[in-house]
């Protein structure tokens, strides 16, 4: 089967300002030779420190930027390096949510309008009533009241705005959702709610996802596969379970060691979410890093226990 998304030797570089009139122009290589596939329904995590090229990669994947070299294939068709006009028909099928929910909604647009905007392009034949119905249903689905459509973004909290951004991203029923640091700008108490929402929506919509984060707990909760990036390069690529059980690259281990250890979670939100693709490996986890890191992933609390039986 063709993968939903495929990156083939992606490379992106930006010119740095000239140091002097006769100096050669230097470039910063943000993404170097990155290749991977995301199969239908799969979630791929991309993890790395800030500056490791994750966000650039995200923009390349949804064709907001053109790569210097390499290709992005969406359902087997090349979408990289094309003029905007040719990409437009595919746009509704691949959406993105951004890190900063304060910047991703137009402050001058009522949120109902914001959410309906992609719909107006993707399904222009809908009349005002149908569109409003879709928006209301979507708002409800992400946990907001449908009568909030007439409000402006500044009237919402960060978590609510991220819900609005998710509603907007999913209103066209995309096949692929790229989430660039979806919770890192949010309060810790809200992070779990948004992650749960993403997890539910992923199953409900049959979404394939690419989740970008510096937070291994987020990756571990949402993703089936993980890519670890450092300095624009992929240093490790593995299934989530394998990565957490036996990290290969030095850098991955350093990242894991840097994760804070939190006291065991009391408010286990929404309980355990056995991630189907991962259960088998958990049997062998034992005293591995994954087990050590258990406490900081309140979300996964049940999984380690359920694993061996499942």
């Amino acid at each position, binding site marked *: 089967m063709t993968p939903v998304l495929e990156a083939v030797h992606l490379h992106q570089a930006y010119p740095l300002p000239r140091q002097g009139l006769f100096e050669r122009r230097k470039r910063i290589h943000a993404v170097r030779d990155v290749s991977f596939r995301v199969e239908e329904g799969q979630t791929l995590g991309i993890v790395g420190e800030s500056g490791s090229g994750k966000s650039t990669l995200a923009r390349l994947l949804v064709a907001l930027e053109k790569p210097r070299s390499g290709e992005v294939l969406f359902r087997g068709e090349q979408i990289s390096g094309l003029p*905007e006009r040719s990409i437009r028909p595919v746009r509704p099928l691949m959406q993105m949510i951004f890190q900063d929910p304060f910047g991703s*909604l137009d402050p*001058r647009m009522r949120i109902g309008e914001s959410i309906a905007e992609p719909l107006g392009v993707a399904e222009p034949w809908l009349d005002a009533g149908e569109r409003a119905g879709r928006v209301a249903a979507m708002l409800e689905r992400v946990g907001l009241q449908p009568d909030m459509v007439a409000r402006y973004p500044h009237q919402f909290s960060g978590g609510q705005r991220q819900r609005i951004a998710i509603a907007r991203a999913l209103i066209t029923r995309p096949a692929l959702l790229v989430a660039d640091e979806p919770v890192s700008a949010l309060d810790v108490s809200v992070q779990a709610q948004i992650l749960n929402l993403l997890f539910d929506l992923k199953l409900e919509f049959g979404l394939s996802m690419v989740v970008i984060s510096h937070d291994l707990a987020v990756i571990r909760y949402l993703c089936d596969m993980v890519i670890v990036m450092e300095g624009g390069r992929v240093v490790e690529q593995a299934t989530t379970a394998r990565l957490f059980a036996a990290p290969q690259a030095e850098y991955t281990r350093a990242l894991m060691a840097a994760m804070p250890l939190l006291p065991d979670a009391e408010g286990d939100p929404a309980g355990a979410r056995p991630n189907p693709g991962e259960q088998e490996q958990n049997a062998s986890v034992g005293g591995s890093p994954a087990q050590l890191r258990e406490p900081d992933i309140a979300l996964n609390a049940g999984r380690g226990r359920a694993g061996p039986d499942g």
Partner: protein
Amino acid sequence: MNPAWRHPSFGVGAVLMALVVGAALLSLVWTPHDPTVMRIMARLRPPSAEHWLGTDQFGRDIASMVLVGARNALLVGLVAVGIGLVFGVALGMLAALYRGRLLDEAVMRGLDFVFAFPAVLTAILILTWFGPGLVNAVIAIGIFNIPVFARQARGATLQVLAQDYIRAARLAGLSRMAVMLRHILPNITGLMIVQGSTQFAFAILAEASLSYLGIGTQPPNPSWGRMLNDAQTYLGTAPHLAIVPGIAIAITVLAFNLLGDGLRDLLDPRMKER
């Protein structure tokens, strides 16, 4: 009460503006005296019952001249700023959209060229070409306004373009044009309005200079700017000649600035009650 009136700057600005517009409209139907009639015997009179604001060096009634002058001031201000705003914002947004590319450079360097000329000199050039008169003066001043708005608009657009909601709009499949009109324009409007209210003052003063040089508003058609310039000679003996049009200009400029500030706030949904 409409919340708009409760905004202090907007309220005061609106009242002052009503005053100026009222004066301009009134002058269409009535003035205390004919503002063009000269009476040498009654020159440089201080304010009196007959001449509320006195008379000028030719014995013309200043109150009447100020009323008629309001018409010209509003015309010059609105049209000149309008020209600058429309073309400037369009060019500025275009340049920002093609940032760093040839079009950006061409547009901005071309506008720098216009900007580098002293405003009045440019106007003189245009007016010698097309002939003197109020309409041409307004166009000349408007042209000089274009680079000012273009620079502001370019900067503001670049700032908006860097926002995630612009990326989100592109992801939604909006065309470049739709992104401009739906997202960029509304988000730079506030800034442009404030700039516009500042440029209005500049426009009135530029018209004054041009009228002084004899290529703006043609005498005997009164202009606040020319009144002010003519008054220089009599500052010691008849200061009211300068004070009256000076106050008229100050009130109008203030009205525009306050209205501009008020509009900026009122157009921003964030300023509405939470």
